[in-house]
């Protein structure tokens, strides 16, 4: 993976676990007549590696709770990874302190899912938008700031006259535009968008997606796009990573993935997309229930629900391999040629 030197952003075996066991006293359990100390960790992201090339739209899909948001937050540096490396432009950023991170903060930005929670309700649009600029350019004059705010606002399609309004005066779609404007304020290169359209209606969703695509075209942005909506993924991505229980199952160029999904989970996922006019219930039925990321299954994390699973899948975790032109799959079945 390291070889991909022209990558903008590289994740190398990134692991993120959350310790939710609380204080020492909460960890103590009484088992078999013995007091034992047990830590409970949520294994949200497990050894995920990939490289995002400049200018691409890299999507991450997967079911709820599979670690998409955690991956996004780890990438952008909100959570420090437990292990693994994150490189931006060839420079390692996961071990930098807040001060050293500052230059990267200007290059990497994030857009969030919930248009209602992602803006500070007590700040006007102006205050929200000028904060990143002023913070990163302390010397800038206030006129320049205003100018820049107005410029970005009109770019995202919000009337600059509304700068003095508070978020609650805007609709969800407008708020999402303002969120995007905030991310664009520092003129970043790379934007992580965590389900930016999931909370919006179809008609608004189209507006926002268009806006994101326009911005990309104008500024040459690179996106890491998180979503569970596969039709959106299909529409905007260049490459897609499919996650299941914190593990990467498949990483392929979008077209390849939608045309010929390789991993059994990807296949199931794609077959379940409700599409206009598709009448019959011809989707692949998965068995069993989704396991919790607290007690990860042994072997392949998907084996419990996979109809193709065999003994090897139960015991041995599959490794991600490139199977053909840029298609990376982590599945014994694919590797063995069973599928």
């Amino acid at each position, binding site marked *: 993976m390291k070889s991909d030197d022209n990558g903008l952003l590289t994740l190398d075996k990134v692991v993120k676990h959350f310790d939710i066991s609380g204080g020492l006293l*909460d960890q103590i359990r009484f088992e078999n007549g013995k007091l034992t100390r047990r830590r409970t960790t949520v294994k949200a992201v497990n050894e995920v590696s990939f490289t995002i090339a400049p200018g691409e739209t890299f999507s991450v899909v997967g079911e709820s709770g599979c670690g998409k948001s955690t991956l996004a937050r780890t990438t952008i540096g909100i959570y420090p990874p437990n292990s693994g490396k994150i490189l931006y432009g060839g420079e390692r950023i996961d071990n930098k302190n807040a001060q050293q991170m500052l230059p990267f903060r200007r290059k990497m930005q994030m857009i969030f899912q919930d248009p209602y929670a992602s803006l500070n309700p007590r700040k006007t649009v102006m205050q929200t938008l000028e904060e990143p600029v002023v913070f990163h350019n302390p010397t800038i004059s206030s006129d320049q700031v205003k100018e820049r705010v107005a410029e970005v606002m009109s770019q995202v399609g919000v009337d600059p006259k509304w700068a003095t309004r508070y978020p609650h005066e805007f609709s969800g779609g407008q708020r999402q535009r303002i969120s995007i404007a905030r991310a664009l304020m520092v003129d970043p290169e790379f934007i992580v968008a965590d389900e930016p359209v999931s909370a919006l209606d179809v008609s608004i969703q189209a507006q926002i997606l268009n806006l994101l695509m326009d911005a990309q075209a104008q500024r040459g942005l690179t996106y890491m796009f998180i979503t569970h909506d596969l039709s959106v993924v299909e529409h905007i991505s260049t490459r897609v990573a499919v996650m299941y229980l914190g593990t990467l199952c498949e990483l392929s160029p979008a077209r390849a993935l939608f045309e010929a999904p390789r991993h059994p989970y990807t296949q199931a996922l794609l077959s379940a997309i409700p599409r206009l006019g598709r009448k019959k219930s011809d989707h692949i039925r998965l068995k069993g229930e989704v396991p919790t990321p607290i007690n990860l299954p042994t072997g392949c994390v998907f084996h419990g629900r996979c109809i193709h699973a065999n003994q090897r899948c139960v015991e041995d975790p599959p490794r991600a391999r490139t199977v053909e032109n840029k298609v990376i799959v982590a599945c014994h079945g694919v590797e063995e040629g069973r599928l």
Partner: protein
Amino acid sequence: MVVFIVRRLVQAIFVMLIISLVGFSIKDQIGDPVRDLVGERVTPAERAEIAEQMGLNDPFFIQYFRFVKNAVTKGDLGRSFLYNKPNLEVILGHAPATIELVFGTALIIIVVSLPLGVYCALRPKSILSRFTMSFSTLGVSMPVFLTAILLIFLFAIQWQILPSYGRGETVDLFGLGWWETGMLTIDGLMHLILPCVSLSTLMLPLFIRLIRSEMMEVLETEYIKYAWAKGLSPARVWMVHAFKNTLLPVITVFGVQIGIMFAFTLLTELVFQWPGMGFMFLEAVHRADISLLIAYLVVVATIFTFVNTIVDILYGFINPTVRIAGTK
């Protein structure tokens, strides 16, 4: 469950150590217990001797260590200067009075606040609800001691229908020998009325409000709407679906409020000359009975841990989603 209780115990011990340490560190500030033991004629030299005998002159840490050692090894919390008995015995002797007071008050609170609170939530616009709510605001705004004085004035002095002070006739409960109860005699019960009522005036409004607002909130939830959509009768929706969920926060608050109630028994006990622990505490402060004070603080900490544990267990009973072993 076992772990839960063990954890609580560890916490309690921790709290007690801190509290007794605090107690010891302030002991010299409260006053000189020797002064209270002797007449005014006794010379300073003799007082010094008595203090020496009592071990009051030892360094702070030696005294503290001795206290902790005795407490741990013998369950001995020292000896009260004022009552001239082991502290634990003194406290246990006063505990029934306070417990019965708190119990009586809690009973009043439960019996009155549940129906009223629920009613106010279901019929927020009715006259009775409005009246209850206004009255309850007045209740919270009235200092306990003022209520108590008024009650005494009206019921004991003007109308002379209820006794004004003390516990009245008490009998030995179950032949335990140390629990003198006033709850089994008519006279004892009569004596309970005024103190309990005055104590409850403070908490009652709070609970009526709490129950009301919780119930109203619960009534807005999806699952209540769903219950209606299932075609259940109002009685079932209100009493089974809504009420049980209302109880959860109420129980937690109840646990906290019991603690606060203890603080207010102090005032009530003072006004009604109720021979309970609060009264004893004040007496101990005024008479500089430091030993008893520290023991009292330790015991109170224990009681709180106990009450909170019970409340938590109870909470777990009603709320299936709470694993008792987990964090709150």
